[in-house]
């Protein structure tokens, strides 16, 4: 394996981005791998606008921090990324904590904008590197943002997929369930079942997640690392072995 797991994930996310027409993506601060995926799509030549939310210089918003939410409310954000301390089989997200409300066992930082963005973005890619029964649970302890909504509730988009360190799930809002789309090298349907707390569908043969090409790796390690260095110095140092100039 001539690539790092983070590089596989970035390339995999990039393919999911390109699978659907996408004009504008917003990316949060804590998401270096999704950010790398977005830059990959841009550097591969797709005319995608990226709004990097916590970029210090060139912050895209001039109306203050509400602008991201207004922009998304207007329907101008085609794709957002979300994670969760817990994610369940209905694609419900828990960023609150485990145990009773408001996280009596383990308190997570909180829901941020998830209870709005998950409804109002054109679609969401769920991303969580840790793939364990602790994170991928049958039912989340507390719902920060629901995976599907009842009739009468305005909802522009849903989860497109859930990408983890072990596999890619596709989400089907009509049936409110995930199906296994591909497994990363070294994983099997059974190994995924063993590590997943929720039930999911397996429709036919499940392929292996396509590894990065040399061209993709070259892009990631050069121009994409350049773009990311200011916002994600630790990530660039760890994954691309690149230090920021002092």
């Amino acid at each position, binding site marked *: 394996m001539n690539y790092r797991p983070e590089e596989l994930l970035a390339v995999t996310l990039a393919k999911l981005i390109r699978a659907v027409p996408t004009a504008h993506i917003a990316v949060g*601060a*804590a998401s270096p791998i999704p950010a790398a995926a977005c830059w990959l799509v841009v550097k591969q030549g797709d005319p995608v606008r990226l709004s990097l939310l*916590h970029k*210090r*210089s060139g*912050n895209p*918003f*001039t*109306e*203050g*921090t*509400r602008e991201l*939410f207004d922009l998304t*409310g207007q329907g101008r954000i085609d794709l957002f990324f979300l994670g969760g301390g817990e994610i369940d089989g209905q694609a419900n997200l828990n*960023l*609150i904590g485990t145990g009773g*409300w*408001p*996280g009596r066992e383990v*308190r*997570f*930082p*909180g*829901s*941020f*904008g*998830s*209870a*709005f*963005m*998950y*409804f*109002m973005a054109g679609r969401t890619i769920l991303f969580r590197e840790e793939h364990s029964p602790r994170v991928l649970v049958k039912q989340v302890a*507390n*719902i*920060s*943002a*629901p995976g599907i*909504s*009842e009739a*009468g*509730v*305005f909802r522009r988009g849903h989860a497109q997929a859930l990408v983890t360190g072990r596999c890619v799930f596709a989400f089907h809002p009509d049936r409110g369930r995930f199906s296994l789309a591909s497994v990363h090298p070294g994983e099997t349907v059974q190994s995924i079942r063993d590590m997943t707390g929720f039930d999911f569908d397996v429709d036919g043969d499940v392929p292996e997640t396509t590894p990065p090409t040399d061209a993709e790796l070259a892009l990631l390690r050069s121009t994409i690392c350049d773009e990311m260095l200011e916002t994600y110095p*630790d990530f660039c140092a760890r994954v691309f072995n690149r230090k920021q100039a002092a």
Partner: protein
Amino acid sequence: MTPISLEAMAASVPDGALLALPPDNSLPSVALAKALIRRGARNLRLLGVPVSGFATDILIGAGCVASVQTSAVSLGEAGFAPRFTAALKAGKITIQDATCPAIHTMLQASEKGVPFMPLRGLIGSDILANRPDWRVVESPFGTGEKIVLLPALNPDVAAFHGVMADSHGNIYVGRRRECATLAHASKRALVTVERVIEANFLEDERMAPGTINATYISAFAIAARGARPAALLDEYGFDADYVATYARAAKTDAGFADWCAEHVFESQAVAAE
């Protein structure tokens, strides 16, 4: 309008006040938070606009806080906020969870002088289930849409750190317009600044768009590097080492007490640097 001292500003925030604070990416007045610790403020009800960061965690650690309304409490790259987490677990504070645009919306309702404002999303979230002060209604426009109405939120005090004040008390915050909304929505706005400039920013087309009119500002104080460890536009960057050091120290009560003694109490000059 002339500056007051930082300690006088802290003294003007009464115990029990609903105090709105922007997070680390949005011009927090860490200087005022430290001054509130020094004055021994108690029972503050903090509002994260729309999330909470370093200033909130040190105020909680110092025992100044009774409750927090916010969309998240985090030290960013440095991880979970240790004093918040410990105080919540110990039952010393309560938390009222929200989601970022809900807090913006509740402040915008106050800004517009309306009693409530609608927001999409939220329905099906346990955040809503735990907010008896929020309402779900069916749109009166006959669409059948169910939507949440959020009540106007009118903080007693808004506190943030601007770049500079002019001779008239107008405050420059650049593109951080959330500070303007916050000032508009609050009963009082207390602002620390790096410096005062002999000028009228409202008469300067290049400065005016990033300025908050003095009409919304109750008082300002000079506090050099007053946002630190947070960044201040292009004036100074985020001090990740300072926050990481804090996050390690504040894992324990004793570690926080030591940190606080050194960084809050030891010397105001040092603290403000």
